């Protein structure tokens, strides 16, 4: 392997460490955990890239960022060039650099990673994006107006990406957001300590500079419908990116007791409403001394870490499989453990116990063991009869997943949905069963990642561009 490389290249086996807040300190504040590289470290990290010819990293990126090219520019200290390269295919790198699961995407395929640690592609991306935000944002090219109007329903990662691409192509884009601020899950779901809201709003501001109009407090399915947008309101096409806005519960007794939250509620109160600033901010949240978070994904990790920051003495991840099956990003699991989150693996609750005032006082659980692999390829959890025990907790956060919010599908005529309620859309185009209506992100796939939603927004934007301007081959 070393023989193929230019002789002057010396291999640096390990990634440059990401500076981070001390775990003891950070578990008590909501400031960003990962502090970001400095200019010298980012150049050093970029120089670790072998610049291999086949660039396998690119195939791991859902939006096919030209990774070798931007890393080369970063290695030369040309961060403006690097960010421009990234932005050719990724509209929101400051976000992706922070929340993408790089270990299962670009970095998974890195040639260097076969024998050593892969290049820290995400960290370099983040540095370049932050560099751009700090310098006020680069001018972005917008095509002359086409006279076509596009409505984007939902301002999460899918909607914002789709909006950016279509606005750049010269279409008049209006984004409808149900909440009082744009960003969707980036604002209400992902915590401040992982993705500062200022970063999200900076990306939203960039979008406005492209001429995108954002209407907040606008619930499509209520004040208007997709049908009306297409017919009365004169939109030529609609993209639906309404996300996974329907929390699943365990359907076990006691789940409506006081002190049981869906992860969506727990995180929305904290992130969107800034309950951690209560009473300066008005929205309260109640976190007891011992918190159990049910689930093993990123949302569960976010909830468990949030609980500690809100003052819980103990915060437990209760997961019915083992550590190997945790679906969360490695880094999030590590960060959670460093901060003192505890893990109860092979454990799942059977009922929530509450007192006369309906407040949670405990949670009865069963032990599990791993059986045969299930349809997801992971070994399925099998309960062990007779192993009931009571976990002493006073707060329970249910983070076992979210389904598609039905408001838009239910009010749109001719829109096919599957059994789970997800909108059926062609993977290659995002086209739905309704002409002129496209969809992407969690509303189509079920709860997934930010970058996959962005990829879907981009894919749909391309197809919508052809739909809106059939003769235009410029893109």
């Amino acid at each position, binding site marked *: 392997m070393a023989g193929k490389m230019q002789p002057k290249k010396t291999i640096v086996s390990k990634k440059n460490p990401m500076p981070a807040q001390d775990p003891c300190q950070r578990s008590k504040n909501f400031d960003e955990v990962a502090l970001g590289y400095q200019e010298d470290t980012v150049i050093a990290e970029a120089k670790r890239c072998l610049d291999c010819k086949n660039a396998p990293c690119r195939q791991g990126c859902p939006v096919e960022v030209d990774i070798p090219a931007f890393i080369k520019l970063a290695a030369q200290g040309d961060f403006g060039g690097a960010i421009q390269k990234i932005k050719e295919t990724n509209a929101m790198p400051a976000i992706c650099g922070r929340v993408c699961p790089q270990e299962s995407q670009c970095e998974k395929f890195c040639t260097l990673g076969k024998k050593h640690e892969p290049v820290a592609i995400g960290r370099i991306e983040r540095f370049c994006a932050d560099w751009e935000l700090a310098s006020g944002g680069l001018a972005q090219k917008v095509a002359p107006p086409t006279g076509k109007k596009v409505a984007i329903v939902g301002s999460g990662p899918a909607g914002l990406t789709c909006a950016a691409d279509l606005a750049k192509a010269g279409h008049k884009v209006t984004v409808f957001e149900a909440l009082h601020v744009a960003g969707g899950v980036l604002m209400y779901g992902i915590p401040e300590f992982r993705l500062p809201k200022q970063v999200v709003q900076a990306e939203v501001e960039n979008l406005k500079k492209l001429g995108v109009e954002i209407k907040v407090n606008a619930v499509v399915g209520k004040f208007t419908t997709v049908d009306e947008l297409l017919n009365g309101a004169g939109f030529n096409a609609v993209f639906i990116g309404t996300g996974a806005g329907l929390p699943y519960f365990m359907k076990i007794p006691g789940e*409506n007791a006081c002190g049981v939250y869906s992860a969506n509620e727990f995180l929305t109160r904290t992130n969107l409403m800034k309950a951690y600033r209560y009473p300066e901010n008005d929205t309260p949240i109640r976190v007891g001394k011992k918190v159990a978070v049910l689930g093993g994904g990123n949302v569960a990790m976010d909830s468990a870490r949030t609980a500690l920051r809100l003052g819980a003495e103990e915060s437990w991840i209760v997961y019915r499989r083992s550590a190997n099956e945790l679906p969360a990003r490695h880094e999030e699991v590590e960060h959670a453990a460093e901060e003192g989150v505890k893990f109860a693996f092979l454990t799942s609750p059977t009922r929530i116990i509450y007192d006369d005032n*309906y407040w949670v006082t405990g949670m009865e659980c069963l032990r599990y063991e791993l059986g045969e692999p299930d349809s997801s390829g992971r070994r399925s959890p099998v309960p062990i009869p007779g192993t009931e025990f009571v976990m002493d907790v006073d707060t329970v956060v249910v983070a076992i997943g979210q389904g598609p919010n039905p408001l838009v599908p239910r009010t749109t005529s001719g829109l096919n949905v599957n059994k789970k309620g997800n909108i059926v859309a062609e993977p290659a185009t995002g086209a739905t069963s309704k002409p002129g209506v496209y969809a992407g992100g969690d509303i189509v796939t079920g709860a997934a990642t930010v970058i996959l939603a962005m990829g879907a927004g981009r894919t749909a934007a391309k197809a919508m561009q052809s739909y809106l301007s059939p003769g235009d081959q410029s893109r």
Partner: protein
Amino acid sequence: MYRIIKKEVLAPTLSLIEIQAPLVAGKAKAGQFIILRVEEGGERIPLTIADFDREKGTITCVFQEVGKTTKQLGTLEEGDGIEDFVGPLGLPTHIKDYGSVVCVGGGVGVAPIYPIARAMKEAGNEVIGIIGARNKEILFWEDRMRAACTELRVATDDGSYGRHGFVTDLLKEAIEEKKGLGLCIAIGPLPMMRAVTNLTREYGLKTMVSLNSIMVDGTGMCGCCRVTVGGETKFACVDGPEFDGHLVDFEEMARRSVIYKPMEQLALERYLNEPEHKCCCGRGGGK
């Protein structure tokens, strides 16, 4: 900003505001609600729609000042703005010709029952209105209700106006007088709605109640407003706010509605102790 174009103080801690929100007004129907946020940093609170004017593009809400947010809302005057205002949310009342319908409004619940009574009468029903309050001073909209209903009966707890007694007393009489009522709709404080459902259950009279659960987003995303109805978990924001009162677990609902009571009390005290909390724009508060 959503402008308050009219304000009426109905009683010392009871106000009506009419808000310019044409997109909400264009679609609002009886039984639905809105969510508002007074200012940046404020909480999102749901208020049931008391009236709407599609031509003027306005929504009317009546609220009682109980916590910090409603107290703050009470300081706003005509011309002031509200930061956020979203709706119409929830499912509208199922309006159809039931023959005869009894609409019961207790306390501030008189406001949301009004458009329902009006719509029921327009749909061809005989509408018996029953409204009540603790005393004469906080009883409002008798005139509007009288116009909206076929007949109206009024009670006050202390006997200072109308019948001395509770709305349930008047309801019992109405049920016994008017055999064959098709539906009862009751909106008011939880104990009142509970009492109404206990009464109508005896008579087998189907009763819808409007649940004012604690909410955050109001679009089914957070699940904060969940309530057990007929043994199943429902979200008041998207499956309601109206449910069959005979199936609602009122005990659970009551417990869940006071989850944040100690914190709300703290916020209120803090607000009332702020020297500048009543600045002319109504947006003061230590920012």
